């Protein structure tokens, strides 16, 4: 098992953001993390990325307790913009290259160019769609074992979403693992293998979508409505 969460819990003051989540992730799969805003998706991701400590419970990565070193194999993309305004697209590549040993500068250039991002463009002048593309290119240019993508499809137009999905599918090679949080069910339905449903910080279910379509003929939206 590449990742095991045991009774993972996070308190913020008197609010329980994530509640006794026990969940295993297999290597080489694409997971969709589904739930309303405020259901605990981001908090769970930040804990698994090693950025926030759990209040209670345990995270095992490749069989050992998650530690600082594991961050070199985990690529996390947050919802917030994380580049400086004054940077140009090519500075972002260099900045990432300095930070992460697994960063493939050639692939970053290839991906940004394919999506119409010019190397001299300033972050400050990018549209929200362009910004989303830059974030995903920087994240996917790392050769990580685990990619945690928080809302990569949010707030951007259809065409940009399709381009981002294409990059994700092209990067997922069956050995690395993806967790993608979203509430755009139809957009991810054809390529996500397991859907993880979260409500009010609790794990509601983990469903293999293809077996579900085979056994019960239910679409992701049907399952979502049944569970949530």
């Amino acid at each position, binding site marked *: 098992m590449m990742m095991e969460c045991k009774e993972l819990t996070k308190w913020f003051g008197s609010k329980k953001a994530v509640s006794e989540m026990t969940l295993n992730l297999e290597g*080489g*799969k*694409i997971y969709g993390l589904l739930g309303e805003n405020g259901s605990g998706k981001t908090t769970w991701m930040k804990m698994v990325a090693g950025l926030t400590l759990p209040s209670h419970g345990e995270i095992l990565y490749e069989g050992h307790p998650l530690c600082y070193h594991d961050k070199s194999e985990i690529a996390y993309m947050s919802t917030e913009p994380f580049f400086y305004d004054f940077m140009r697209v090519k500075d972002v590549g260099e900045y990432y290259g300095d930070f992460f040993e697994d960063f493939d500068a050639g692939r970053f250039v290839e991906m940004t160019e394919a999506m119409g991002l010019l190397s001299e463009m300033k972050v400050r002048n990018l549209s929200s769609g362009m910004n989303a593309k830059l974030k995903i290119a920087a994240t996917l240019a790392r050769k990580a074992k685990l990619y945690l993508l928080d809302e990569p499809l949010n707030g951007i137009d259809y065409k940009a979403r399709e381009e981002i*999905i*294409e990059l994700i*599918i*092209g990067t*997922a*090679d*069956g050995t690395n693992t993806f967790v993608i949080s979203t509430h755009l069910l*139809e957009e991810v*339905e*054809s*390529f*996500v*293998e397991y859907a993880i449903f979260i409500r009010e910080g609790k794990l509601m279910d983990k469903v293999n979508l*293809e077996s579900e*379509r*085979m056994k019960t*003929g*239910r*679409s*992701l*939206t*049907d399952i979502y409505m049944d569970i949530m």
Partner: protein
Amino acid sequence: MEYNTGAPIYLQVMNELKKRMVKGELKPGEKMPSSRELAVMYKVNQNTAARIYREMESAGYCFTKRGIGTFVSEEENMFENLKKEMAGELLANFMHEMRDLGFEKKDIIFQIEDYREDADHDDGM
């Protein structure tokens, strides 16, 4: 590709590939996309793409040359059989639906003969 989201994705992609073979868009002996390309093309994951090729291969629609790629079968018979098989499936479906509406086989045949391809069958959908 537009999917029926309540049916297995791998079967729908397989069906699409079989259709392309029957239509001659994928020719005997032609190299098929790599499973990575197939995944991007049909918006499916690697495991589904690999499964599609596994199933296509065991059904004899294509074959794999190690380290080179997957190729469309070169057996001429296979294409004829595939065409018949797909027609059979469509027909079985159609007959089932028509019988459900209460038509007998002879009524159905009569209707087919009476059917005009160029007529306006637009039902406003």
